[in-house]
């Protein structure tokens, strides 16, 4: 249960090797609590678990593969709950960033879409169902500003995030009155392993900034936040720009 001071006791991170996800988990459990890192790569998970371990924090790992059938996702959530009881916060941080040029053939596109779209979508569904039954808990979905206006070089990623963003907000609305809640987070460009080597557009931040913003939002009522906050008006403007002008802007920032 979250306590009277807003602290969650148990946090599940789907996409346990995600840098932003780990920063959020660390932010939410600063002093004590249970953290479950769920992901595919056991070595990377074990390493992250060691890094996040603390005196009163219990960190464990769990096998979870976004590419697996839906039933496996449901099982992963049930296993996590069996370990520590109710899941107070589930952070969904599954995704890979592949340049459009790397998606050379249809199977590669399929792989990317299953990882960035289908897997996360099913995870949103399964997590929401579990939180609804619990009667409390927050599902934090890592979307992206790319969901609002996709960039040419990353349009598969953008389209996937776009769909995930819409789906998560929709499910969030369906949870009203259940005690459970969805918080969609749209970070801008964040310096992580995933974005290493990419050019840094304006308003680039680090995982810690995103985490701090999520931590604050969890004690409020928002269902959608941007990180940094300034991206909300910026993306609104970008979305309304004519395509030709947007292209020119994009070329300006990336070249």
């Amino acid at each position, binding site marked *: *249960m979250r306590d*009277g001071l807003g602290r969650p006791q148990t946090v599940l991170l789907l996409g346990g090797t995600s840098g932003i996800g780990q920063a959020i988990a660390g932010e939410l459990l600063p002093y*004590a609590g249970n953290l479950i890192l769920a992901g595919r790569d056991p070595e990377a998970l074990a390493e992250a678990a060691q890094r996040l371990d603390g005196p009163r924090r219990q960190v464990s790992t769990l096998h979870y593969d976004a590419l697996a059938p839906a039933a496996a996702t449901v099982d992963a959530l049930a296993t996590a709950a069996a370990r520590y009881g109710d899941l107070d916060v589930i952070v969904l941080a599954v995704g890979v960033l592949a340049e459009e040029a790397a998606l050379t053939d249809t199977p590669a596109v399929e792989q990317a879409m299953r990882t960035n779209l289908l897997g996360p979508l099913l995870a949103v569904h399964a997590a929401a169902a579990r939180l*609804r039954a*619990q*009667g409390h808990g927050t599902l934090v979905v890592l979307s992206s500003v790319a969901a609002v206006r996709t960039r040419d070089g990353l349009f598969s990623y953008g389209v996937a995030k776009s769909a995930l963003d819409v789906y998560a907000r929709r499910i969030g609305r369906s949870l009203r009155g259940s*005690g459970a809640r969805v918080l969609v987070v749209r970070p801008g460009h964040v310096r992580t392993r995933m974005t290493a080597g990419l050019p840094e557009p304006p308003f680039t931040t680090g995982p810690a900034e995103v985490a701090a913003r999520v931590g604050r939002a969890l004690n409020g009522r928002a269902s959608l936040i941007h990180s940094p906050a300034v991206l909300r008006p910026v993306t609104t403007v970008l979305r309304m720009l004519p395509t030709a002008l947007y292209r020119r802007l994009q070329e300006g920032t990336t070249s």
Partner: protein
Amino acid sequence: MQNSTLVEGWGRATRSRATVVTPGQGGTDEDWAAVFAGAGSRGLIARGGGRSYGDAAQNAGGLVLDMRGQGGIGTVDPVTATVEAGAGVTVGELVRHLAPRGWTLPVVPGSAGVTVGGAIAADVHGKNHRRHGTFGAQVAAMSVLTPAYGPMEMSLTVNAEQFWATVGGLGLTGIIRRARLRLIPLGSWWVTTVDDEQPSLDRVLERLRAVAATSEHAVAWVDHGGAGVVTGARPARLGALVPGRVAAGRRTPVLPGRGIAWPPVSAAADRVRRFAARIRPRHERSLAELHFPLDALPGWAGLHGRRGLVQYQFTVPFGAEDVLAEALHGTRSAGFAPSLSVLKLFAEANPAPLSFPAPGWSLAMDFAARAALAPVLDRLDERVAAAGGRVYLVKDSRVRPDLLDAMYPGLARWRAVRSMLDPEHRLVSDLARRLRLTDQRISDLVEAGHA
């Protein structure tokens, strides 16, 4: 769950959604058994007047039984000096009902809205623990509906172990239906209270000891420096038994920010309290005013800001006075000013494993609920536990479960009795989940050294 209701703790800092069900008045045992059968995987908890500061009477995603309709006050039996009351009767109703008949409850909590069932489940205490012990100790017998055995009569002689597991058992051993309560003769509806200002914590404690030894009621309010006002009470105007009207407190607004727990405001309030005690130490008050100070400001939690308040009440044995001093100084120096700090004195504990009072001092502090307060109170928990003290579970909303075994050495025994009465875990609350009170699996893990 679409027909859910938001259920809040009295401090407004904890809240969750549950299906709230109001059972009919009376009802056969079969009707009540059906209630258990109807509880889904999230279980159920009985809720009385909703005066628990924290999450003891909340059950996220499950069932909450609103017991307030389960009323009925029997006639006083003058031979045994007892009265029978339904679990949903409030102590305020009882005190007012009994006074003209020349009787009263020996032990009452600080709010008139606490129900009989809630008072037993929390094993509440009054300002006279030294004289009468806790509320649970006044229960001559009670009828409890248990998941495993159905209706069960419990008393000191019948099912005594179950009786003490239910007293202070936070509603997790069964649904308390009715109780026969011990009474004491009442000499007057009016009491004279005397305030005594003291300049330091040592002097406050010394005076509180003296007042508790000679007066019926004794309590002290302290400021962050330890200075305070000790209040004692004794009956006035003997023979005047008719309850006077007590003006209902005014509803107070929700303040922004930390509200009255903002240090400059609380410091000013401290000065006002001391000044008032100095210029007018003696008051004639009604029994209701004496017993139920918490009802004077019905919106007290809201005065602490939008997120409400957490109350931190702990007890430490005599000799551990340094923990009291540290609690008062430490929270203040960390930037958290309690809006109210109240000291009491406890005598012998009763045999209930989860009962809060134990010989020593009790300090209750109200804080605006803010996330940054967590590490401050966590450190205090460790000091309290190390000194042989404990926090009051029914008021808690944030203690760490790993400290419970140290604070409540009888916890394992209580769990064993509880799991006999409710082997399928039908009874559960947010507090039980948060503190893993009914969770055998976790305690097994602790034993195995994994947790």
